[in-house]
């Protein structure tokens, strides 16, 4: 049943798949870059900020982490226009994904900051370093190193979650599936092929993060 068609739809629709793949990669890269930086900043506020700042970030993190991504996406893409903010599909996607990832990153990195032993901080204080200096030289790298596995897992999860933007018709890899589906009517085969592609992306990302760890944190 499927054997011939699988090859046919893959080779015939290579272009659609490729275009979708590129969009997925772009979305993932932008979101991970922004999410990591903003999330680390948010984590710093959660641990070191003034009470009102801490509460605000805490509320933001809890709201995002306790509601589904697809609802957040719909709220941004479909909901904002009714209060005057009209965003195109890609901007809405990046916005929703980034807001989402930042919250999860903040939690993870916060745990990282708190995992640095107090004695390390005391050593920095006793040398005469200021708070920000201690953060930069004593806390930041060890904290990130400690949570590297959680963080890289979260980023891989995000790449997989980008598939949700297909639901607002963003032209990502998953959406390519519905395009090909409408052309070939081979639903099952199409999504199997696309799934395999996601699996490859996952393996590549995991491998990449592993390599990055060795480059950043292992010493010669």
């Amino acid at each position, binding site marked *: 049943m499927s054997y011939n068609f699988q090859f046919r739809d893959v080779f015939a629709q290579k272009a659609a798949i490729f275009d979708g793949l590129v969009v997925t990669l772009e979305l993932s890269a932008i979101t991970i870059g922004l999410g990591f930086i903003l999330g680390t900043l948010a984590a710093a506020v959660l641990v070191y900020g003034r009470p009102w700042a801490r509460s605000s970030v805490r509320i933001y993190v809890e709201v995002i982490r306790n509601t589904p991504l697809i609802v957040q996406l719909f709220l941004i893409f479909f909901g904002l226009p009714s209060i005057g903010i009209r965003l195109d599909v890609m901007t809405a996607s990046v916005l929703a994904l980034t807001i989402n990832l930042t919250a999860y990153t903040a939690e993870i990195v916060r745990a990282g900051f708190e995992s640095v032993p107090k*004695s*390390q901080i*005391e*050593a920095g*204080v*006793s*040398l*005469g*370093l*200021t708070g920000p*200096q201690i953060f930069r*030289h*004593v806390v930041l*790298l*060890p904290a990130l*190193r400690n949570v590297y596995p959680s963080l890289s897992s979260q980023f891989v999860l995000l790449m997989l979650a980008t598939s949700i933007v297909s639901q607002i018709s963003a032209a990502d890899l998953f959406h390519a599936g519905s395009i090909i589906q409408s052309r070939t009517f081979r639903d099952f085969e199409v999504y199997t092929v696309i799934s395999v592609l996601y699996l490859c992306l996952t393996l590549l990302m995991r491998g990449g993060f592993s390599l990055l760890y060795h480059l950043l944190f292992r*010493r010669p």
Partner: protein
Amino acid sequence: MPFVELKSVVKRYGNNTVLRDVDLAVEKGEIVAIIGRSGSGKSTMLRCINGLEPVQSGQVIVDGVAVHDPKADLRALRARVGIVFQSFNLFPHLTVERNITLGPTIVKGIPASEAAVLAREALRKVGLEEKIHAYADELSGGQQQRVAIARSLAMSPNIMLFDEITSALDPELVGEVLLVLEAMARDGMTMLLVTHEMNFARRVADRVVFMNQGKVWEQGPAKEFFANPQTEELRAFLSAVLH
């Protein structure tokens, strides 16, 4: 004028009064050993001296600076007060060299090349020059502690505080650290050591202070102190410790 002065210092942790009315004076160039049971307040007293612990009342004056005055420039003071901890507290993600040059470059603004020279010099004093590019987890406990001492020395402090720095070391590694301390004593450094090493205290210290129940219970010149304990409590402590 004493270099370090504690006047009627009282410190509490919640309901627990750790320091009750402590008075202590340390002259420049003096080597003072502080002994006592755990819980007697000796580490806490040391940590009050560089402002790591706040006090509820009384005064701590170091090199003319009132440590707990809100307007005090603690950063500048801490550059002059070196402290070495029981758990070494080296920065694991930095090389030995960077551990040592961090303070001088950032706090004192010394250029990197000069700081590197300082680091080498400090490591030479503790006998670990060849480990300059190593990381903390490549070193033994005794070596890490000596690097911690070098890190404090590189700031050219006027006084060094030692908080039970040999207590966490395997016995065979203690000697190398004590040798470094003896050399520093000979060089005329003002030193305050909280320690369990009684023989070392007797040999090297000028004065020994016995802390008990949060007070300075007894103190005196080293040889006298160990030979003729005046108070009952000190006698009991020494016989328990010097079996």
